């Protein structure tokens, strides 16, 4: 039987006056890198916030590591990295990490270890305010890694990084997954799809697909994740407007 780190059933979220997520059924298998992809505003961050248990006005069920999302026991088992770096800019990298390490009961050796994992050993005594945006977001990532969580929820961790760093982070995620950590990672850049074990395509608050990349390409006949996404969008549009309408032949557009 497949074990799941995250399961949602009929998850819907209202933010302000809008239904931002609608009836999301999601299953994230343990020990995989699952990519949450889709355009900005599609609801990726909201879904992640629901999984971490910081989102209000959530209906349906969200189960994380066998517990309801947001349970107290999950607070040391789930690591969360928000989209904009949530660390103390006026403190040094080391001060930030030692603080977050203390909160989750990790020690100084662990801090050194994660600094190496995110390639920031040389910056340990620098103030976060003096770092580049990419470096700051890696400090934020390190602060989540330091507790060795079973589930890592990463909101666009690779945005603004150069290709070399991006590759090294994706390798890190794969290594973490290989050691049993589940990684739920979002991106609005479709070409990161190839790095994920599974993809969840999210658009306008609904799941378009939840599958592996090869299966997705097979199903849509597209050559890459972006093509597959566009076809699924067209299919969804066609289904809503009636597929017989002229000019909506789904598999011919965007080619």
């Amino acid at each position: 039987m497949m074990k799941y780190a995250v399961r949602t059933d009929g998850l819907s979220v209202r933010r302000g006056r809008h239904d931002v997520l609608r009836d999301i059924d999601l299953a994230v298998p343990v020990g995989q890198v699952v990519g949450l992809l889709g355009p900005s505003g599609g609801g990726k961050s909201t879904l992640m916030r629901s999984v971490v248990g910081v989102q209000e006005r959530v209906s349906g069920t969200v189960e994380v590591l066998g517990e309801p999302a947001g349970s107290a026991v999950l607070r040391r088992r789930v690591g969360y990295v928000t989209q904009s770096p949530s660390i103390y800019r006026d403190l040094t990298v080391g001060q930030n990490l030692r603080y977050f390490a203390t909160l989750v009961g990790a020690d100084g050796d662990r801090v050194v270890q994660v600094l190496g994992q995110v390639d920031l050993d040389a910056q340990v005594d620098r103030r976060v305010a003096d770092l580049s945006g990419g470096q700051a977001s890696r400090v934020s990532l390190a602060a989540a890694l330091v507790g060795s969580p079973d589930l890592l929820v990463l909101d666009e961790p690779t945005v603004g990084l150069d290709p070399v760093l991006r590759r090294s982070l994706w390798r890190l995620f794969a290594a973490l997954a290989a050691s049993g950590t589940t990684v739920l990672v979002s991106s609005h850049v479709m070409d990161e799809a190839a790095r994920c074990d599974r993809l969840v395509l999210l658009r306008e608050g609904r799941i378009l697909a939840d599958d592996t990349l090869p299966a997705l390409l097979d199903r849509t006949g597209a050559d890459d994740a972006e093509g597959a996404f566009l076809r699924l969008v067209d299919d969804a549009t066609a289904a809503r407007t009636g597929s017989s309408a002229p000019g909506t032949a789904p598999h011919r557009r965007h080619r």
Partner: protein
Amino acid sequence: MNPTRTAATAGRVLAQLRADRRTLALMLVVPCVLLGLLAWMSQDAPLFDRSGAQLLGLFPLVVMFVVTSVTTLGERTSGTLERLLSTPLGRTDFLGGYALAFGAMAVLQALVATGFAVWVCGLEVQGPVGWLVVVAVASGLLGTALGLLASAFARTEFQAVQFMPAFVLPQLLLCGLFVPRDQMPRALELLSAAVPLSYAVDALGAVATTVAPAAELSPDLAVLAAFFAGSLALASLTLRRRTP
């Protein structure tokens, strides 16, 4: 409440303050400058002995209120609060950490300001000088608790700073520094009983004029403690794990 996480939070807040040398200097130097001014313009020494002592309770309240509300607002807007509350850190650990850190700052500020008032400006009080420090620290702790609460109602740092005059100036007028409270119109006297600064000023007045002020000022300290506990309890309600 977890002692390790509370202490770590206090240490982190203090490290942030240490990194901001200018704020630190302002916290310690401004009270001394104002006390010096007051001493200089008070031709009549007994007047300074009383109002100088009472002023010692004002600085910590104002300064800790502003610094705490701006710092906590930063935590709310930068996402660090949301992150903290998704870790094992409890709300009481968070509030306790802030109270400890700014309590320590209040001790330092009270020692510097009281030392300056006594040794440099020649402040003379009837009661033990140590009581001045105790009341000043109590008032600083209250400022921190109120700042933690106020930060929930500000969206920007501008707003947070604006709370200071809105919140402190009425207290300053009502607390008995300008017009003794028992000489106020009845309605204002009642109103002055509702503002915490009145009790700090009253307690410091007792130290200034009484040789053994403990009995007279302990009810004041009790009221300050009640305001402190009440504000912290309200502040903890504003620390939401789930936000819209």
